[in-house]
């Protein structure tokens, strides 16, 4: 077996994680943000897989299953919310969601 150092192994999830993070920060479309979050969560899952293979334990894999399931739940709720937003605003652009903001005392 070719052994790859852990740091190198971690590079892939890290890059994925950053891609996801950037996606959330840059994208304004809620659906894309949701997808970016999925990437982040899956990157985290990958980290657990690496840990699991490194320490020869199944624990990490269990965690991954939970991460997957929870990500799915998040997406399900997210989609429902996005639908509602679309119905109200006819857009899924987060920048259009501006009802809630700081209103300072004038003068």
């Amino acid at each position, binding site marked *: 077996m070719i052994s790859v150092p*852990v*740091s190198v192994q*971690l590079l892939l*999830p890290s890059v994925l*994680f950053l891609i*996801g*993070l950037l996606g*959330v920060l840059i994208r304004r479309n*809620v659906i894309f*943000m*949701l997808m970016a*979050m999925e990437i*982040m*969560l899956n*990157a*985290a*899952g990958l*980290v*657990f897989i*690496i*840990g699991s293979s*490194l*320490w020869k*334990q199944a*624990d*990490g894999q*269990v*965690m991954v299953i*939970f*991460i997957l399931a*929870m990500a799915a*739940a*998040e997406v399900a*709720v*997210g989609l*429902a*919310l*996005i639908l*509602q*937003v679309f119905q*109200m*605003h006819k857009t899924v652009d*987060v920048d259009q*969601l501006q*009802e*809630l*903001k*700081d*209103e*300072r*005392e004038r003068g």
Partner: protein
Amino acid sequence: MWHQHLLPALFPQIILAAASVLCLLLIAWKRNHAVVHLFTLLSLILALASLGKIYDATAVDGLFVIDGLGVFVEGVILIAVFFITIFSYPYFFQSQIEKEEYYVLLLLATLGATSMVISNHFVSFFLSLEILSVSLYTLIAYPKKMSASVEAGVKYLILAAVSSAVLVFGLGLIYVQTGQMSLAELGKLATGGIGANIWMIVGLGLVIAGLGFKLALVPFHLWTPDVYAGAPAPTSAFVATISKGSVFVFLWRLFSSVGTMSHAVQLIFVVIAIASMLIGNWLALLQQNLKRLLAYSSIANLGYLIVAFVASGETGLHAAMFFLVAYFICMLGAFGIISFLSEPAESGQQERLSLSSYTGLFWQKPGLAVLLALIMLSLAGIPLTAGFIGKFYVLLSGVYSTQWLLVIVLILSSVIGLFYYLRVVIQLFSRPETPVSYPASPYAVSTGLAFLVLFILLIWFGVAPGHLMDQISQMVHMIKG
């Protein structure tokens, strides 16, 4: 694998889980708001009753640990949810939307919160965190015709999901470095010294950031006001109290198991605490919206809590717990009043948000006004209220661990805070030019009773805190054993 004798230790969780499923079936069978409401209350009482026995640091399959801290906070959470449930009934009474599912979600969120405070393992923590968060997304956006609520829900969803991802990624890195996901095992490792590897540091940093998001500490606080303002008031109460309290307990467990806090980590928390206290109070100063004001106030209050966290040790823990209880009472009361005074509108419940709409509340509803004023004073840390003893205790823990910088900032920021709390109080008691009309809420009896209980607790813990403190010290003491 299967320890039957450990089952009772998890009774609250089991009861809550069963209750949420049964509640769902109840709704499927027949929709009835009152019945579902009563059922929820009943199951909460049952869960609370099952806490009766205290389990001395019982570990359940490594996933959970039932100790004094856990049981105590579980109890506090259940009681708080009880109040929130009571407040929810009149709030949704006149609502056009289907309101029964709200209670299912409430029970689920409670399940998440209560299991988080006893979780002793990354898996159980993550699971409970997500149960809590996912229910909260829906709870926040529950009045689905209100664009503000839906917007708040989306915002919370995005930020909470990102923070979960950050948190889990951080936990993953810790796992890769240590090979352990159980806090107890991590603690054992920590005594041997965990190598300060770059990945480990990044992992810890990400965990702090993730937990910071959940606790709405300062660099990660941006979601708080929007979510508080947009969510229905009972949910805001939930977000402000339970979700934060439970995450805080895990924060405590995590860092006390990783061992005596390293200097760098402590520094990070000192900075976070200072920033939260100052910025939270500062931003609250000019708020015209009561819920946003409470949101910023909660940021500051969490900052105070972090002072106790940094102080660490037994005093810190006691202080944090006492403070948490006082904070819970205040937030519950404040949001309870907001939800009580809301009026039905076409798309949902119209809440009274601007401070000016509370002008002269005292002349119309003196009881409510006095309670709200007392809550504000408690948040400000004025004697006679639980908030005073809480803040005093936190100060004590800060002084005890000679965190002078934190202590001074706490004092300064409290004074800033005093300003806006008093502004609210003055508003309540000033005479309005045109008398504001307040709705007569239905079912004022149970809500009134709840307010009375909160009032009594607020004063009781403020005047004679000895009992609560003894309780805390007795229970929390068990962690060590």
